[in-house]
């Protein structure tokens, strides 16, 4: 017990670790805020950089970057309608309208506090239930991931705005983009039109930067002469009453975040989508309608994506299996430093688990501090005249895209998606469903084929499996319920029962 406590406090009491965690968190916020710079990239660069360091120092810096980076994506989403990372895509839905109302400062303040609450709850779940949660996550078979992806497709109704038909079209477009590249099973090129560059597919961050960043910049040309909205900067830190009001929602969305994050096949991006959907369904009287600057629409994704960090560490620390791309790189770092990430990690290096838990908690506290300072300067971004802001955004988009793979080809793709996104916006399409399709398309493809080959390519066997395994039964019934309650099927059924 005393060991546990001293491991937990390791990062809190050692000035060097304290400093590195703080530095990491601060750097992470900026890495996360710039579209294209990803936490995965930053952490893998750190591996060579920290090669000769003590492992604890390296881990402290990585934890900081991870926590700060996941939060940082919301900054640009709120201020510019350009999510810094896929997990902040839904943050823009209500965050940007808030900035348009002059409440950018309040929105950033609220998202900071909520991210910290989500992050701490995620850490708490990691600390208390890691082994059980890991066992639960292992129960998910390919068919269950397939069902989750199908459930995700139903989010289209939440993300489409006014026109569901346009939303469905956008999801299909996104899914098609997501399928480009070499087919994993047969190694045959798919939709590549003979281009070797396309064999690896189009990176979904490229699509995201194009559709959100470049397209938004082009679209803003319509408002070139509009006077920027004056930002209120007096009420940045949300009052306690507001935080308490959103506490029940944030606990629920944090749980969604930590569970989805702990599943090795899904991460913060999908968690934030489900959380937003949950808020939209469960909050009957939001502060404003969703999509027009509802605080609830900000609280849900921001708690969920930070809680997912704690979740991603669950399979990593208990089993040595990555919960997402970042923890995969951290596992690599452990290997290079001579540790043995695996089921024995917690036995042979007992300090790692509680050290990480303590470190995550610490990084979240630093996040609260760094997140709440400097907001006034940040909100000024919105007040910058469009003629200066738009070229800057475009430069940022190009640099961000280039840095993903150091490839000019991807910059051209990004610009292409920017132009496509501009026209889609003009005709009233939403960008969210396209990203939903890009994220879910490959997941659907992969998990459906895995589930089918598990059943010996028999459709009957596959369908039977959906209703013969407890976990799959639950997921299948949720899908059926959502379909029945959200579609005309409901009123049709009601009318029928009444008649009989």
């Amino acid at each position, binding site marked *: 017990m005393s060991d546990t406590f001293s491991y937990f406090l390791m990062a809190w009491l050692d000035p060097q670790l304290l400093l590195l965690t703080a530095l990491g968190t601060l750097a992470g916020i900026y890495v996360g805020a710039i579209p294209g710079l990803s936490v995965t990239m930053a952490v893998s660069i750190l591996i060579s950089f920290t090669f000769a360091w003590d492992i604890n120092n390296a881990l402290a810096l990585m934890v900081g970057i991870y926590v700060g980076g996941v939060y940082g994506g919301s900054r640009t989403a709120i201020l510019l309608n350009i999510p810094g990372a896929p997990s902040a895509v839904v943050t823009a839905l209500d965050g940007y309208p808030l900035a348009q109302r002059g409440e950018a400062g309040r929105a950033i303040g609220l998202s900071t506090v909520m991210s910290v609450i989500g992050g701490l709850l995620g850490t708490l779940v990691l600390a208390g239930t890691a082994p059980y949660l890991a066992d639960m996550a292992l129960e998910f078979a390919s068919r269950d991931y397939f069902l989750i992806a199908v459930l995700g497709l139903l989010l289209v109704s939440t993300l489409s705005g006014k026109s569901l038909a346009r939303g469905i079209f956008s999801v299909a477009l996104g899914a098609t983009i997501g399928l480009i590249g070499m087919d994993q099973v047969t190694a045959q090129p798919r939709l590549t039109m003979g281009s070797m560059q396309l064999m690896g597919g189009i990176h979904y961050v490229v699509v995201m930067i194009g559709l959100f960043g470049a397209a938004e910049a082009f679209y803003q040309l319509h408002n070139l002469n509009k006077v920027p909205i004056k930002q209120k900067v007096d009420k940045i830190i949300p009052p306690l009453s507001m935080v308490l009001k959103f506490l029940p929602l944030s606990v629920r969305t944090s749980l969604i975040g930590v569970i989805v994050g702990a599943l090795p096949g899904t991460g913060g991006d999908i968690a934030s989508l489900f959380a937003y959907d949950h808020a939209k369904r469960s909050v009957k009287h939001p502060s404003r309608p969703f999509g027009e600057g509802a605080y609830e629409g900000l609280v849900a994704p921001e708690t969920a994506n930070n809680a997912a960090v704690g979740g991603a560490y669950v399979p990593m620390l208990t089993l040595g299996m990555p919960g997402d791309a970042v923890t995969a790189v951290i596992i*690599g770092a452990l290997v290079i430093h001579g540790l043995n*990430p695996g089921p024995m990690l917690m036995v042979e290096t007992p300090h790692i688990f509680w050290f990480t838990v303590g470190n995550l908690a610490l990084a979240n506290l630093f996040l609260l501090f760094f997140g709440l300072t400097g907001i006034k300067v940040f909100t000024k971004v919105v007040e910058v005249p469009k003629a200066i802001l738009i070229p800057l955004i475009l430069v940022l988009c190009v640099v961000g895209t280039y840095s993903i793979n150091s*490839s000019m080809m991807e910059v051209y793709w990004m610009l292409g998606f920017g132009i496509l996104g501009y026209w889609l916006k003009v005709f009233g399409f939403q960008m969210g469903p396209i990203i939903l399709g890009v994220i879910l398309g490959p997941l659907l493809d992969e998990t459906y084929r895995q589930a089918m080959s598990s059943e010996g390519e028999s459709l009957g066997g596959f369908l039977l499996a959906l209703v013969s395994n407890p976990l799959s039964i639950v997921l299948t019934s949720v899908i059926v319920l959502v379909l029945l309650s959200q579609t005309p099927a409901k009123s049709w059924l009601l009318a029928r029962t009444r008649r009989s």
Partner: protein
Amino acid sequence: MFKPLLVSTAVALGSLAMAGSALAEYPERNIQGTIQWGEGGATDNVARSLTPHVEEILDTTIVLTNRAGGTGVIGMNHVMNQRADGYNLLYGAENPLLYQLMGLADFTYADMHTVNIIGQGLVVIAAPADSPFDSFADLLEHAHENPGELRMGGTGAGGLPNTVLAMINAVDELDVRNVTFGGDGPGITAMLGGHIDFMPLSLAAAGEQIRGGKLKGLAVVTTDEIEALPDVPPITEALPDIESFLPWGPFWGVFVHKDTPDEAKAALEEAYEEAVASDEFQEFLESYGAESLNLNGDEAQEYLDSWQSVTAWSMYEADAESLETTPEELGIPRP
């Protein structure tokens, strides 16, 4: 902890100074290293733990970038299209030797110059800890009686599990449901949950899970028992005929453009040979469940030729229809 930072600053300043002199020796500036697989994978781990030693020896900085996708085609294509000045390195795995056979690309390692074949991974056929099979012979027997029932974790055409399955099928018959995952990690996770029955894996990926009692080894794909897994029998016990394909395993190497100046080739070969031989890196390879090779020149070429011949022909004998062409047409001799 700030010492390495100081050292690297000094190195950077030093290389700047060197660039100033007229008759500068290779390397006079930063080198770009491209890793053909993603962050956190085996090739990435090997590249990132070896490179700091090389940087020290060459007194320069090697900037590592992951360019994953298309079974490594994209990373290799990138390096081949860079200037042949010795400042662009490829960190690659075994896959390019099969590109032509599978119709993925028209180049192989023969189109580059091999700086070093760093090492090779050992392969183990793993199953969940509560699997009813205690050895590969048990599994094979069950599969003979119930063809097409067992689920094998795979990583797609050209991946390690499929190649091992091909070797087995070239000498015996193992009819299984091949479930394709995005990599070793997702496959192991599915196996831990009991969703697949077995999976051929590199020891680097499976070793810790076996040691921790979450998975068990049914066979090691070698002719003798190995030190790291003392109780796991060699596959030749159940399948003596497979010996003709062994030793076999995935490997990692460093490559440069074929037309790189000889001076740069020699400097790189020397530096990598020294770096791979360093105690620290040897320790890493051992704990990673890999065998050190440290080959260059003719020895490296022999190794690549024999790997390609063994793998291509076993794939051809197991399932010729799935291939784009035959090893014979590509001029790959029989093993």
